[in-house]
């Protein structure tokens, strides 16, 4: 449990702005250790570089300074094996059926057909997509399409799952149910989960630890431990600590959010 699965040391991201001149300091310097098998969430004001952080870990972007390592090996601009990503936007391939979407990466990995079929079958069952195997994404609801995307990641048996606001486009009830499913597959797969979200209650409900990020350039202000048992579901919202934890996140985040929309943070609290 205490082995560092992902390590970030002094990670900084600076974007140059072609045409406009100048640079945007988006992120860091930032240090972070993800423990093996934990559910880690990141919340922060909009535009704080949450998604950039995820892209750095996914190898979709390279850090301007500092080092990102997965399982001890530096991530150098390429997504490492064993890492799966689910985005907020619907990323299903609309020209493929549900099973073909799910099997896409397996085909590319040249898995034996038998193994491929059994993995797809498991993922379909796990994400409750039974009966929709031959449907096209356009025939499914937003929630179902997001399940397809999660299933597509799951079949590759990732050891680290990166979720970039995966429920952002879904309605509240679907979000809660999808949250439960993610918790369940987190338990079943034993993977480390890294979740980016703007919903504080979602972070509190799902994660073991929650990092609160500052306004740009994004740094980690505080890491809140929830202390939930591994066996948990959306009913943790009934727990007395749930309100206190969410309130703590908001306390740290409020001033930062004010900053990011260009207003002073009001009366400083606790000398922050």
């Amino acid at each position, binding site marked *: 449990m205490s082995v560092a699965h992902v390590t970030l040391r002094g990670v900084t991201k600076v974007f140059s702005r072609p045409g406009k001149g100048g640079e945007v300091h988006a992120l860091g310097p930032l240090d972070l250790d993800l423990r093996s098998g934990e559910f880690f969430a990141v919340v922060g004001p909009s535009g704080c570089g949450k998604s950039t952080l995820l892209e750095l870990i996914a190898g979709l972007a390279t850090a301007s300074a500092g080092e990102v390592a997965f399982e001890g090996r530096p991530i150098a601009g390429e997504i490492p094996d064993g890492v799966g990503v689910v985005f907020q936007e*619907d990323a299903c*391939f609309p*020209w493929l059926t549900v099973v073909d979407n799910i099997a896409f990466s397996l085909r590319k990995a040249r898995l034996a057909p038998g193994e491929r079929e059994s993995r797809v079958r498991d993922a379909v069952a796990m994400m409750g997509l039974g009966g929709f195997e031959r449907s096209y994404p*356009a025939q499914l609801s937003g929630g179902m399409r997001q399940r397809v995307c999660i299933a597509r990641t799951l079949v590759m048996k990732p050891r680290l799952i990166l979720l970039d606001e995966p429920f952002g486009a879904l309605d509240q009830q679907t979000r809660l149910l999808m949250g439960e499913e993610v918790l369940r597959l987190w338990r079943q797969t034993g993977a480390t989960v890294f979740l980016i979200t703007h919903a504080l209650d979602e972070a509190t409900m799902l994660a073991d630890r929650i990092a609160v990020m500052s306004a740009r350039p994004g740094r980690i202000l505080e890491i809140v431990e929830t202390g939930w048992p591994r066996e948990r579901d959306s009913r943790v919202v009934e727990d007395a600590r749930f309100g206190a934890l969410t309130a703590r996140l908001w306390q740290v985040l409020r001033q930062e959010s004010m900053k990011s929309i260009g207003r002073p943070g009001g009366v400083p609290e606790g000398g922050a």
Partner: protein
Amino acid sequence: MTEHKPRAWRNALAVLAALVVGWQILHAVVGEVALRSPWETVAYTAKLFASRDFWPNFDETMTAFAAALAIAVATGLAIGMLLGFSRLAGEVFEPVLVALYSIPKVTLYPIVLLAFGLGMQAKIAFGAIHGIIPIALFTINAVRNVRPILIKTGRVMKLTTWEMVWQVLFPAAIPEIFTGLRIGFSLTLIGTLLGEMFASQRGLGYMLMNGIGLHNVDVIMSVTFMLVVFAAVISSALLAIDRVLHGRA
């Protein structure tokens, strides 16, 4: 979609019936000298089909059209994909394509004739010229409009450039590309027939011009009728496929 089908058929039949009735009325108004009735046209078309002189002309047109279409599709797709993927090339050459497209192509025909000579090659070239640019323009837009998230997903799946093009970009762009092919089909057919109507010794276009020269209204009506039916049937089929592809996206 399935419950719309009977209605679509009913609408199509109603339009057809209206066309035939309109044709018949027009025939009654302008008289036998200018227009044959629907029935006479169909009867003469059957007679043409039975004659030996007709089929070489038909083959000539279809061969020219098939070759022109193949060239237009292959070249149009290649140009479109290239300019769609490469931002710089697209910015440089797309305005050129648009400018070229606005030239009335008939003005180019003398040059085509000089370059290819009288006959099959000139017809093919002239047909292809009509189809290439619209297909290329549609393909450019189709490739550019592929949702970035799909490309990002491809990167997460570690696709090679080749796999990205053929397994993500191309299939994602297909519905839009197909619309371009549908329009390219019609324009290539127009181009091929135009090519046959001037400076040609064979083909349906030649038959048509010959009919005009001899004031053979039967031939004019029958050939026009055939071409309209051919274009309408294929276009409708392509449109139906187009709808299915777009419904999925």
